[in-house]
């Protein structure tokens, strides 16, 4: 009980710092890969603070409410995960948060927001089967959906769940919004859809979205960590290293691929979910 409360508080307090720091590291590594120097590592924090200093404008009376809902429920999702709750509850609450963001974009009735929102919705449909199957994979192996019970499991689940792990890392590209699947709100795509989903958000609202993404990224990395935990300090360290490696892998993929069409995102994510998830599931159930 105490452990979960402490974990939740640690998450709520530390996640934005770690998430923002990782975002800064992301930009520096990307810059170095492109032969540039890159911004200072604290740049994402400067961005968020600057956004808070801008004039307060909005396009209608409801979109800030929806964005606030998105932010609140991202934090709730992370909180539920670190409190040890059921993985399915975590996934469904994250869907709730994502729907809040998508509806915020739809509410503005702006052409660029609409494109971004539809694509974001498509991304959600693309990664959801794999995410659900990952949770089911943990259940098959540990006998429980609950994060606290999975953490108490004394075996490293990477090998029995290798298909789910590979599939989950695949769809991380979509969740981290990296090329080739950064189709809904990438600022690199501003020739194509201005700012996509984020077009009509500015100032503090946009700052909230950035912060929420940091919280979400830490949550996603924590799921990767779950594949390695077995209660020992050694595996915990290895888990963290793999998380950072996965993050680096996503940056590498981002810089290696051009952005693709939405069909590529949907096709590849669903085929991966069916193949890797389905086969691993078959092995776990029948084996």
């Amino acid at each position: 009980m105490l452990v979960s409360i402490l974990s939740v508080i640690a998450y709520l307090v530390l996640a934005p710092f770690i998430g923002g720091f990782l975002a800064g590291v992301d930009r520096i590594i990307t810059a170095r890969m492109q032969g540039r120097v890159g911004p200072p590592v604290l740049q994402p924090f400067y961005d968020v603070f600057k956004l808070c200093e801008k004039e307060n404008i909005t396009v209608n009376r409801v979109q800030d409410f929806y964005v606030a809902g998105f932010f609140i429920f991202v934090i709730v999702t992370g909180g539920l995960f670190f409190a040890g709750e059921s993985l399915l509850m975590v996934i469904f609450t994250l869907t709730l948060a994502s729907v809040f963001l998508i509806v915020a974009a739809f509410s503005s009735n702006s052409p660029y927001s609409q494109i971004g929102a539809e694509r974001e919705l498509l991304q959600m449909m693309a990664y959801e089967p794999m995410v659900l199957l990952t949770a089911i994979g943990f259940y098959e192996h540990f006998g429980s959906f609950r994060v606290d019970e999975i953490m108490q499991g004394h075996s490293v689940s990477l090998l029995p769940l290798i298909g789910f792990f590979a599939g989950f890392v695949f769809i991380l590209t979509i969740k981290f919004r990296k090329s080739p699947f950064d189709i809904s709100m990438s600022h690199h795509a501003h020739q194509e859809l201005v700012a996509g989903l984020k077009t009509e958000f500015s100032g503090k609202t946009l700052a909230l979205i950035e912060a929420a993404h940091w919280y979400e990224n830490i949550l996603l990395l924590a799921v990767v960590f779950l594949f390695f935990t077995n209660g020992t300090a050694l595996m915990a360290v290895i888990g963290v290293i793999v998380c950072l490696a996965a993050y680096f892998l996503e940056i590498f993929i981002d810089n290696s691929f051009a952005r693709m069409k939405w069909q590529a995102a949907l096709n590849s994510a669903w085929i991966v979910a069916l193949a890797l998830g389905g086969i691993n599931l078959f092995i776990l159930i029948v084996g």
Partner: protein
Amino acid sequence: MSYVTKSPWIIHYDGSSCNGCDIEVLACLTPMYDVERFGIINTGNPKHADVFLITGAVNEQNKNVVKQIYDQMPEPKVVVAIGICACSGGIFEECYNVMGGIDKVIPVDCYVPGCAARPEAIIDAVVKGLGVLAEKRAAMAVSHDKKELKAETEVETK
């Protein structure tokens, strides 16, 4: 301490430029000059931008567009006119279809002459623009405080 100068996001618009200055602006983003070192990101959305980089002169067709993009940027904001066409109309100043430099439509904070303006000059102008931005931000904060104070004293005196 204002963070506006540490994270200036730009929006770049081509008024009627021959694209020479535009290419130089984009060159600033390349590894050779790398303005991301200053936290600069090229966003295409006025609602996200702090610095408005314009090239090319103003004419009847684009004057409303320029005005609209400028209006849609939230405060504080600065405008940097890049290239001599943006400063004063350049060699096209006397043409029947050209109204003149950008300052005929919106207030300009920094002028970068040149044809085409060099990336070093553009970066220099943006840095000067950041100084103006910091001043505007300070003024904004003061007037915001003054408004709050005024509202408080009004309540007290009632």
